[in-house]
């Protein structure tokens, strides 16, 4: 696989962000905020760290990624298209009838490992896939991307326990700590406490990073890959709506596209590229 440096990854992330805006604007619906916040992480995973081959999407040794926050479908679909799993032209079908690009992450889309959308289920799926790797003596890794609002679901904590019990050092969860959920700020809706210490106390290793600093993302993932006896949570501090000023930290853009042509043009201008 081609080796991408940080400058390349930044360009890729910029393209992911452009596609996110284009998709939700074309669909007149969708979730840009939590897609933009993980664009840098997705770029690092899919273009540098994950052992994947778009031409061999069923390779039993491939790394897996479960997008537990399935509303971040624009982010994942854009990344998969740019990575070559399917033509970029298909992104225009997002959320439309007769397109495979369902509103929430759908397994029928090439490169998608599991359908998600109802929150709190992806970490458990990741536990199952990681257990299967152990049973089959395969060395692939399983990545799970969680939202911070998502961990208000109790089922996530059930799976934190399970990951620890089975010492799944092949399981890497990444928490998109953007501080915003649909109804407002997580600090108002349901204060989450000291997530790092909480997950650590469940028996996980926790790596605290700036989720928009490529060097930090890369070094955290590479450190997580070296885990020996426990799963790793990368607690990535991010900005919801990152890259589009009026969307940043604005709960409104959790689930709304640019409101009009002016907002649309502004978003693409601020993201830049192309």
């Amino acid at each position: 696989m081609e080796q991408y440096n940080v400058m390349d990854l930044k360009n890729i992330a910029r393209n992911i962000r452009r596609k996110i805006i284009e998709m939700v604007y074309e669909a007149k619906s969708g979730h840009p905020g939590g897609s933009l916040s993980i664009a840098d992480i997705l770029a690092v995973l899919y273009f540098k760290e994950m052992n994947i081959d778009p031409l061999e999407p069923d390779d039993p040794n491939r790394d897996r990624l479960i997008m537990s926050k399935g509303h971040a479908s624009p982010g994942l679909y854009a990344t998969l298209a740019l990575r070559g799993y399917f033509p970029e032209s298909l992104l225009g079908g997002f959320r439309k009838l007769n397109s495979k690009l369902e509103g929430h992450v759908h397994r029928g889309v090439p490169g998608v490992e599991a359908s998600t959308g109802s929150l709190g289920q992806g970490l458990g799926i990741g536990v199952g896939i990681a257990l299967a790797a152990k049973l089959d003596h395969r060395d692939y890794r399983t990545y799970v991307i969680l939202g911070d609002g998502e961990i208000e679901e109790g089922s996530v904590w059930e799976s934190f326990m399970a990951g620890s019990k089975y010492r799944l050092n092949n399981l890497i969860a990444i928490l998109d700590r953007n501080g915003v959920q649909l109804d407002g700020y997580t600090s108002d809706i349901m204060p989450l406490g000291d997530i790092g210490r909480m997950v650590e106390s469940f028996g996980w290793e926790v790596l605290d990073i700036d989720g928009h600093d490529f060097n930090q993302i890369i070094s955290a993932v590479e450190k997580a890959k070296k885990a020996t006896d426990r799963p790793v949570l990368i607690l990535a501090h991010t900005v919801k709506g990152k890259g589009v000023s009026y969307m940043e930290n604005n709960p409104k853009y959790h689930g709304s596209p640019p409101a009009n042509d002016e907002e649309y043009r502004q978003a693409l201008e601020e993201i830049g590229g192309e």
Partner: protein
Amino acid sequence: MMRNTGRRWKRLEESEMKTESLRETYGEELRNLGRTHSNLVVLDADLSTSTKTAIFGKEFPDRFFNMGIAEQSMVETAAGLALSGKKVFASTFAVFLTRTYEQLRQSVCYNNLDVNFVVTHAGITVGEDGATHQIVEDLGIMSGLPNMKVTVPVDSVETRSVIDYLANQGRGPYYVRLTREKFPVLNDPSYEFRPGKATVMKDGDDITIMGIGIMVSFALQAADALKSKGIDARVVNMSSIKPIDRKAVIDAARDTGKIVTVEEHSIYNGLGSRVAEIASEEYPVPVWRMGMRDTFGKSGKSWELFDYFHMGVNDMVKFAEACFREEPRYENLS
């Protein structure tokens, strides 16, 4: 529709001498299959000594995952294992699986994965544990899920056959409903389960009693009593709730003109509802449903509870006779 060849059925009195535990059979069959199926894995949620998956777990500790009292995570993990090519069996009590409805819906059924949920302690035969544990709504919940198939084995023979079928040929998610109590053995050892196939346990021309689970045994007893009243009842084991044997229902409607459904489940959304739907669409005849009438269960001995809820053999005889004679139905319910 299949017909049981050879010795068709045994009287309950005889059977009472030979009852077998469905969940014990399940655990033993899992262990047997584990010896030949290396990709078979089993999950439980801290009830393995009751669901009997512990029998598998003891011999195959590496392929047995006790997820703790955490059913949601169990269902998600089952999905992850199935996504990775494992043949998955997951067990808990029927009532506790229903709390994972949304995990079942999205992680398992929407992804259409080979996960077999074999639950035990369904219905009122949980007995003394009482209403909190006696789920009588589960068949409706599970049948409503796209891709999910649903079956209620009538005895240990059918249980074994269902588990074998799932391990060797099953595709997609499956819900198998077992019980705490031992049930009479009704089927010959040669019986083979097929999805969507009902079994005529006793033929008859005057009325058809379609049942699931223990109620099939009761129906055979009731049919004996009805015979002495000059009513020749057909008794059909409708163990495959989804897919369901539509032809068996149409045949019953056409041949006998009246149908009584009997189930250890709510009359809503279970066997009775399915049969009534099919009859009304295909061959409208009276369909009377016996079961739990929009109510919770109650503590008591399992067999006492059937009388308490008017679902015992005597009630069934009265119910079927009233249906046959077209008497006003509600007078005959108590």
